[in-house]
């Protein structure tokens, strides 16, 4: 994909990929950029959490993103998920890919249109260093986290308790145990009649993406609560 990035005619002629990488280094640091570029991260579920997590990780310049969801974009998703009217009826995996390619076409993307379960986690996320749990149901959340902890040596960043609005400061990142991080207030669920509202879901998504980056950078985050 050709990106018209060289708008300044006096600028030297370099490829879009080189230019994006250069800008990412300038805006961050070489060490950050190089480590993120070498990482492969899986996003399980591309709803309110996952679509926003994928966008944050693509913007940050993660090297490879494995993106998985079985669902189609519905009008009712647009209140919080990172899609547009034009995506209604499209596969979430394909719509996410389209959006992310407009942000950074030089990342390696691996979209899967698939219902994830324990029979295919390994096949989909085999090469991921970190898996981000971004499912909707509590059963699916628990299933994936159990699988990661029992059957792999990967790290998992999950979410629980993201419904409602307000109470921004109760959205926290907790280190539950080795290789298991959990974002949210742990209690606010859709079952309590609370709906999912864009800002609070996006807050949790940003926590998850931010946690991924601090894990990649091997930087113990002193603000993470036990």
């Amino acid at each position, binding site marked *: 994909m050709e990106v018209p990035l060289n708008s300044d005619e006096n600028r030297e002629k370099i490829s879009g990929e080189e230019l994006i990488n250069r800008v990412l280094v300038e805006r961050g640091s070489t060490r950050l950029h190089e480590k993120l570029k070498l990482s492969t991260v899986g996003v399980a579920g591309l709803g309110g959490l996952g679509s926003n997590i994928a966008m944050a990780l693509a913007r940050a310049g993660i090297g490879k993103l494995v993106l998985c969801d079985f669902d189609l974009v519905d009008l009712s998703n647009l209140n919080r998920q990172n899609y547009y009217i034009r995506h209604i009826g499209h596969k979430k995996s394909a719509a996410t890919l389209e959006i992310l390619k407009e942000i950074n076409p030089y990342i390696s993307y691996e979209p899967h249109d698939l219902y994830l379960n324990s029979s295919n986690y390994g096949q989909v996320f085999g090469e991921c260093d970190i898996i981000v749990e971004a499912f*909707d149901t509590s059963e699916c959340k628990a299933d994936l986290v159990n699988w990661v902890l029992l059957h792999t040596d990967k790290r998992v960043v999950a979410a629980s308790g993201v419904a409602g609005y307000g109470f921004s400061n109760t959205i926290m990142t907790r280190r539950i145990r080795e290789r298991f991080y959990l974002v949210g207030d742990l209690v*606010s669920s859709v079952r309590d009649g609370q709906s*999912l509202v864009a800002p609070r879901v996006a807050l949790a998504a940003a926590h998850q993406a931010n946690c991924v980056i601090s894990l990649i950078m091997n930087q113990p985050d002193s603000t993470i609560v036990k």
Partner: protein
Amino acid sequence: MVINGVERQMANQSVSELIKSLNLSEKRVVVEVNGTIVDRDLYHTFQLDQNHVVEIVGFVGGG
């Protein structure tokens, strides 16, 4: 028995029974006993006693 960092007087019981007594659901939790994750298939047979240190994380829906 220590459950999520708090010493509690609980009868010796299986992981399954403990989950139930805490009003949680087996399908919505991750359970660690003495630092090791317990396989869900073993919840029924894994017997807990007073010396066990248990961590249970329950998930709620929404995402």
